[in-house]
């Protein structure tokens, strides 16, 4: 598997505290990787940096083999990487308008938007909600709209920040099914969680963020023993 994005020598301090010090982090094609760590350990900050929403103190960023300055990389990444908040924000407009938002930014024709939105509604099983205001939806329904809104842009990398937090078991299962289908579609996924065992069945690899450093972990079949090896 080739690397889509490679972040190296990534460093981030917050209020003079070193939050992240990562030697190397690669996002490979068609990979689903879990990112675990304790709450407040920097998972969300790392994902926000990876999505270009927050600037690190320093980083060397290589996109498709080309090393780019941070600002230019951010612009380029917008077409490849989509970040979904722990609780996705849906705009105060209809479900259809929410899903079409990204396509409108890309100046896609109205006919094409209509076709793709219809397909995305079917994909997420939310056709019956299309005219509802997105603000009126339940947590699980909101998550499905957010996934459809991201998928319609055909991202190469999806950064999911604890997508099943505060969800009931049924909504959680639905979310897992959507992640699995995205993975089957060839989208690379980085999945932040503080409970790796709940998403282990979806992931090809597991990264653990401890004291600002990344470790690759392997878990034995019983999940009893954990071996941590330096990552990068």
């Amino acid at each position: 598997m080739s690397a889509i994005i490679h972040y190296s020598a990534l460093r981030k301090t917050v209020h003079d505290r070193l939050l992240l010090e990562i030697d190397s982090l690669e996002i490979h094609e068609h990979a689903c990787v879990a990112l675990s760590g304790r709450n407040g350990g920097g998972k969300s900050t790392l994902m926000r940096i990876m999505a270009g929403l927050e600037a690190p103190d320093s980083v060397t960023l290589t996109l498709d083999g080309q090393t780019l300055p941070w600002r230019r990389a951010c612009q380029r990444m917008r077409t490849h990487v989509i970040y979904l908040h722990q609780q996705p924000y849906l705009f105060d407009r209809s479900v259809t308008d929410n899903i079409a938002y990204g396509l409108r930014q890309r100046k896609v024709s109205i006919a094409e938007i209509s076709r793709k939105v219809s397909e995305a509604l079917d994909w997420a099983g939310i056709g019956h909600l299309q005219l509802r205001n997105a603000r009126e939806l339940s947590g699980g329904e909101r998550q499905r709209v957010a996934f459809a809104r991201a998928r319609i842009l055909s991202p190469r990398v999806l950064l999911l920040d604890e997508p099943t937090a505060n969800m009931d078991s049924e909504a959680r299962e639905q979310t897992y099914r959507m992640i699995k289908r995205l993975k089957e579609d060839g989208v690379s996924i980085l999945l932040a969680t503080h409970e790796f065992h709940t998403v282990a069945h979806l992931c090809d690899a597991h990264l653990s963020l401890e004291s600002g450093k990344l470790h690759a972990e392997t878990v034995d079949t019983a999940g009893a023993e954990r071996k941590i090896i330096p990552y990068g």
Partner: protein
Amino acid sequence: MDSLSASTAESFRLLFSGDAALWVIIFTSFSVSVRAILIAAPLAFVVAFLMAHLRYRGRRTMIAGFSALQSIPAVVVGLTVYLVLSRSGPLGDLQLLFTHTSMIIGQILLSFPLLVALSHAAFQAADRRVWETSVTLGAKPARAFLTLIHEIRFGLIAALLAGFGRIIAEVGCSMMVGGNILGYTRNIPTAIALETTKGEFAQAIALGMVLLTLALLLNGMLAFFQGRGVMSS
């Protein structure tokens, strides 16, 4: 007492008979204040947004400054604009004094700090995810800004209404830079002040009723939009 009731009756007659002089005054008021608010608001929103989202030296001082400027008396703004636009002032050659333009300039200066302060509060309270979601979905900064404006529209409409309420009822600035010229720069508050000093209460009461109705309407709308703003956040 008889005089008061007669004046009130006359004021109703003036209002509902379509008295041209009265309605020109009302039209002038609205025309000047609406134009002032439409010019001031976009710039105020951009300044408020930058103050809410950028971190730079002097930001707190700037916020405190706009907050303090809200309470600047209208006559002081009027005096400043008068001095700048008067024949001997730096912009005297433009001959703008005692025109709609000078009144609009004065009202822009009056409403701007209030618009910035109130819209800053709305931008400050906006969910950070609005901007981030727009950007991650590919919106350019200008488009993300418009999306943010849409999401906090009720707070911004409340700011617009409060700003409009401030300038439609002010006397000092309009009197000084407009000159209270009949049929041209005379607006509701300056006409009320003049008619009262002349003892002509009928027109003053009629115009007072228009202002009072407007004030009630604006406050009702303000309460509505502020409520919607809270609910939608």
